[in-house]
């Protein structure tokens, strides 16, 4: 069905159609509309689900953990400080192998109070064992949320999935949305180690180094296996519903000399910058990273690379740029832009490419080349 929706509402609609049994959440701007919409679905009887209005994000994730271990489908949503407040529990969720799906509306971190888009919040969760995907349109937010449940709950994965959408520039903007009937696209959840009082087990107790090490390797093995599950899920989604997704979204990359890489809404904006550059005779392409964990294999051989980071690791550099450099053993032009919701247009992006200095870092609007 075709309609107009915000990014937040699209996520809420996808969650409704995924039929979770428990949603626990705490309000935070710019995520709040997601949980408000779900609370309304539950209260009005449109969703057969328990909505737990917890007193903090730490408790939101704890409640999702407690619900998930009984074997039910579970969802929450958060942003920025909320995400960091639940950091202890995001580790717990992944370590406990619970297929919780969470929408994170990317926002900067204080101080000072700034509610606008930035990716540093989710980047600080990158080593927790969660799968992370970044979306760029309202439609993609909806489709990816539906796929996230199937991926998380797949028995070769059984890890939580975080769907990231940019605060305001995606969460609050209106775009066309074509909703689907998922039908059996998401199979019934089956958690092999769900709590069963007739077959009691201990969960998360004292663990010696030998076993702990084994459990950590199993998380890594599953996150590697998730690549295949993601691929199959996206392929089946395309077959059933006609929309194609992959680990990256590549635009005019085949014959490109220079590739502009970004995530989220910037990644989509970069396509316009590419068109501008092509008109000028610069053979540019854009590559939008969708899945950040597991980190995709990128085909960058023989290309110059410009990376826009909407995040930063102080004392080190742009996080996405450094992951790409390390994984591909290349140098890139690292642009830090859009922190705290800083406006970055496609013209600005085109200029990053024109003035690129491979091997250097540039803070847009703050520094000259450094």
């Amino acid at each position: 069905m075709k309609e107009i929706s915000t990014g937040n509402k699209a996520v809420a609609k996808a969650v409704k159609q995924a039929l979770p049994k428990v949603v626990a959440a705490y309000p935070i701007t710019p995520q709040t509309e997601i949980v408000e919409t779900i609370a309304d679905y539950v209260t009005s009887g449109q969703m057969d689900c328990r909505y737990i209005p917890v007193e903090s994000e730490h408790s939101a994730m704890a409640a999702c953990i407690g619900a998930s271990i009984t074997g039910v489908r579970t969802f929450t949503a958060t942003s920025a400080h909320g995400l960091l407040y639940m950091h202890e529990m995001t580790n717990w969720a992944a370590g406990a192998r619970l297929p919780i799906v969470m929408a994170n509306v990317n926002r900067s971190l204080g101080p000072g109070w700034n509610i606008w888009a930035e990716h540093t919040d989710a980047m600080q969760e990158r080593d927790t064992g969660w799968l992370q995907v970044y979306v760029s349109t309202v439609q993609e937010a909806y489709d990816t949320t539906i796929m996230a449940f199937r991926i998380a709950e797949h028995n070769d994965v059984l890890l939580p999935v975080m769907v990231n959408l940019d605060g305001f520039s995606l969460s609050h903007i209106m775009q066309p949305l074509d909703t689907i009937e998922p039908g059996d696209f998401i199979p019934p959840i089956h958690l092999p180690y769900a709590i069963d009082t007739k077959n009691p087990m201990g969960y998360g107790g004292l663990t010696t180094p030998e076993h702990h090490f084994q459990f950590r390797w199993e998380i890594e093995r599953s996150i590697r296996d998730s690549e295949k599950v993601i691929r199959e899920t996206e392929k089946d989604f395309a077959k059933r519903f006609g929309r194609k997704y992959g680990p990256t979204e590549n635009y005019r990359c085949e014959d490109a000399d220079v590739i502009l890489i970004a995530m989220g809404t910037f990644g989509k904006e970069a396509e316009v910058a590419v068109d501008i550059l092509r008109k000028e005779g610069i053979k540019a392409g854009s590559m939008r990273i969708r899945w950040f964990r597991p980190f995709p294999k990128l085909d960058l051989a023989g290309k110059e690379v410009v990376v826009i980071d909407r995040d930063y690791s102080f004392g080190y550099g742009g996080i996405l740029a450094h992951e790409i450099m390390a994984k591909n053993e290349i140098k890139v032009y690292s642009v830090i832009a859009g922190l705290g919701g800083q406006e970055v247009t496609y013209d600005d992006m085109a200029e990053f490419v024109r003035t690129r200095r491979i091997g250097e870092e540039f803070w847009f609007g703050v520094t000259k080349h450094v």
Partner: protein
Amino acid sequence: MMINNDRFRELNSRSFHSNLLPDLVITTEIPKEEYLKKCTSACAGCSSSLILRYVLKAAGQDTALVVPACCTSVIQGAYPNTAMNVPVYNVAFASAAACASGMSEAFRALGKKTNVIVYAGDGGTLDIGIQSMSGAFERGTDFLYICYDNEAYGNTGMQRSGATPIGARTTTTPTGKTVEKKDIDAIAAAHHLEYMATSCSAYPQDIFKKVAKALTFRGPTFIHILAPCPPGWRYPTEKTIEMGKLAVKSGMWVLYEREHGKLTISAPSKAAMRKPIPLEDYLSPQGRFKGIDAKSLEILKQRLTANLKALFEEEAAA
């Protein structure tokens, strides 16, 4: 073995009518099934594992336990073994009640009546876990929260907690704590719980009865159980039961229950308060109170008197 409501009412009324010999009557009613096996890694003389034994006997097989970081995290044994014969979900320190909220809602969504019980220490309740506990109470989560209180962070080597009494030495109050114990029961009561109670490891029948009763309620219930700790309180391991009895007989710890807001002081405390023993009889066998200063002792005594007065007045008013 499940304790159903009918059986509990029968059990309760019998004990009510045989006030003079409550122990004898109820002892026969405690199920023989063991859900906490003998192979725990508890310290010698540990009272918290004793409490848990009776908690689980009262709760029965259809029970899931949520345990935050505390002595019980260790007592249950190391992976892949467990001394527990009910599912035990271990979870991060501050999160037990919130985890129980999710678990309880999920069980109910699945149409299951499974008891969800948080079994947490005093640090996990009065300090780091107080927010999630308050939230779960306020939301009306259908669960039982049990705080076993050994008045310090026992698992990490006896650091002071919000439950440590004034004057008690811990590894972080080496000359004695200078501030009073937090009144978690008043805080719990402020959530208008349908049922809340106190108990003590030295009175297993009291624990059994109160846990069984708490589990007949829908919604949040709370039981605060004093758990004397030989290494922490510094008394010989064989004195654990005696120490709990001294706490009650001195009036330092009062056994009661508050049902639908109506307070009833439990029989052992009522009997003890007819002729309480001096507070010093409770304090002096404990190394942690050795050399307690006169001011702290006076505050302890004043608090004891005020607490007893308030409880007996509340009961009389009801």
